[in-house]
């Protein structure tokens, strides 16, 4: 009991100095500078700007097509049609939306996993081995970061159509397995976080290079690998141009391309599909939004790598 009260006492400031009316907005221990309330107003206004479109989307997903056009956009309509919308979304055209969601998951999941593994191997080698062609090789990888993905999509299409690979899952999956930026991040993190002495000690103990990589390096690299995975996952999930160019079979579409197809479809002219595009947009962003909230830590950690280390 005594310990508890002393702990409480240490939390409250010793002297009750007069605090300004906005005192609750800032932490007590700090010196209050005059710009704080203005800054908070600015930040709350900015939060509104960033969140309102998403709030609009959530509200609109509860409306049928009549209410979408007949009621004010930022408040609910006559009745709640969310479940009708969801049912219609997942059953329309024999449930093609399921295909799109699973395709996105396949492309982004497998692409990110594969590119992370390749980046870990290559980044580790660039960081920890001496070999001819090392600096030239890494310069090429760095240069490739500057090559925009969209500039590459058209040439890729021309090439893959020669090989007969267009309009197949490989046309999206295989290019998604290459991430020069991932190699760059893995190299930086490997040089910073795997001590050379540790590798040499393992070698003296007789461990082979692959075993050192598999047991020691992978474990030390794992925070960076999570970040590389997340980056590539979002990049592939968001990629629109590559599947647009490569795919013509609707059953192979990722969700972004599928929704844009509905958005462009002639049926839209009589507003028949609006509720599906709205509800589908909401459903398609939920997985990423959830993962962002859960995995925030990894984003910041990994990003500080990329920006500080050079």
């Amino acid at each position: 009991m005594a310990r508890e009260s002393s702990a409480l006492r240490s939390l409250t400031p010793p002297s009750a100095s007069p605090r300004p009316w906005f005192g609750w907005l800032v932490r007590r221990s700090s010196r209050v500078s005059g710009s704080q309330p203005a800054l908070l107003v600015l930040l709350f206004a900015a939060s509104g700007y960033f969140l309102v479109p998403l709030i609009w989307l959530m509200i609109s997903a509860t409306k049928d097509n009549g209410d979408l056009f007949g009621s004010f956009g930022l408040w609910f309509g006559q009745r709640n049609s969310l479940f009708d919308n969801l049912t219609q979304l997942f059953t329309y055209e024999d449930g093609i939306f399921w295909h799109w969601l699973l395709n996105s998951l396949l492309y982004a999941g497998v692409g990110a996993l594969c590119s992370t593994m390749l980046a870990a191997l290559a980044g580790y080698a660039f960081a920890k081995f001496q070999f001819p062609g090392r600096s030239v090789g890494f310069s090429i990888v760095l240069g490739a970061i500057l090559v925009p993905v969209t500039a590459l999509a058209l040439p890729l299409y021309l090439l893959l159509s020669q090989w007969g690979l267009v309009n197949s899952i490989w046309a999206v999956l295989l290019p998604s397995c290459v991430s020069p930026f991932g190699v760059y991040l893995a190299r930086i993190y490997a040089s910073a976080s795997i001590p050379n002495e540790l590798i040499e000690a393992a070698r003296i103990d007789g461990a082979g290079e692959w075993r050192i990589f598999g047991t020691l390096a992978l474990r030390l690299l794992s925070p960076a690998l999570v970040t590389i995975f997340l980056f590539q996952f979002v990049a592939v999930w968001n990629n629109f141009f590559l599947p647009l160019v490569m795919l013509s079979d609707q059953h192979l579409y990722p969700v972004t391309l599928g929704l844009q197809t509905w958005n462009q479809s002639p049926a839209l002219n009589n507003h028949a599909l609006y509720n599906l595009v709205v509800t589908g947009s909401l459903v398609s962003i939920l997985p990423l939004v959830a993962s962002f909230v859960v995995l925030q830590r990894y984003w910041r950690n990994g990003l500080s790598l990329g920006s500080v280390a050079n």
Partner: protein
Amino acid sequence: MRIVASRPAWSRRRLPRQWLTAYSFILPFALLFLLFFLVPIGFAFVQSLHQSKRSGLGLEAPRELFTGLANYTLAWHDHTFFDGIGRVLLYGAVNIPLILGLALVFALALDSATLRFKRFFRLAFFLPYAVPGVIAALLWGFLYDPSLSPIVQGFAHTRLGAPDFLGPQSVLWSINNISVWEWTGYNMIILYAALQAIPQELYEAARIDGATDWAIAWRVKVPMIAPALVLVFLFSIIGTLQLFNEPQVLATISHSISSSYTPNLYSYTTAFAKGNYDYAATLAVVLAVITFILSFGFLRLTRNQSGV
């Protein structure tokens, strides 16, 4: 050369085998990189040196002929292409300073020790990055569309009248807004992460010297994160020139977006609507070269600040 220098006898025996190990580590990445990165670029360049020609009366199937730089001459005189490039450059000149300025202000604000609701702001600003570009464009498209938009409806009741977000003058700035919405938080997180990595002692020293919070922000923090600023600026330049998703989506509700509105949209139309793959490849190559020139020019300009 650290490992090699420290144990010469050991490594001389080991070196060639280490090369082999290194190559086998890099091989999987190198193979896919070659196939899906370098070969397509080479292939596009070869394709750009050809033209598809019909002989005689045009009754036979067209043949691919080597025409040297003919496509490049064509592109050089192509006003449609350069109009598009001018448009994205104008767009970028507004878009990049706006996004990075906002991102920097937000990052500095979040980095301040005294701010409340930090977690909320960080998440609220970063969340739009979780929304794919196409979905963001669809979403804002709804907010621009006069028949759906609460913004347009709201303004219609005031004396200002309903704004036209999709007209020929305004649509570029409506696209700009989508991109600000999407990318500000992403850039903010990169800058914020860089700020968090600055050792705190530096601020203490500045404070003892009597520096105010503002002076610390602009004189200490901003110069310290110059490499991160260079990085995000570089990515922004590259992204801007590739503008495609937003205009492609908005084109379904706006008549002001032509099929050659941006260079990327133009090369896409050239390939898939007109079937002229040779010329589309030429446009892709020219665009990539322009992107490279601007990126490297920027890196040279900022060499002293960035240390890259």
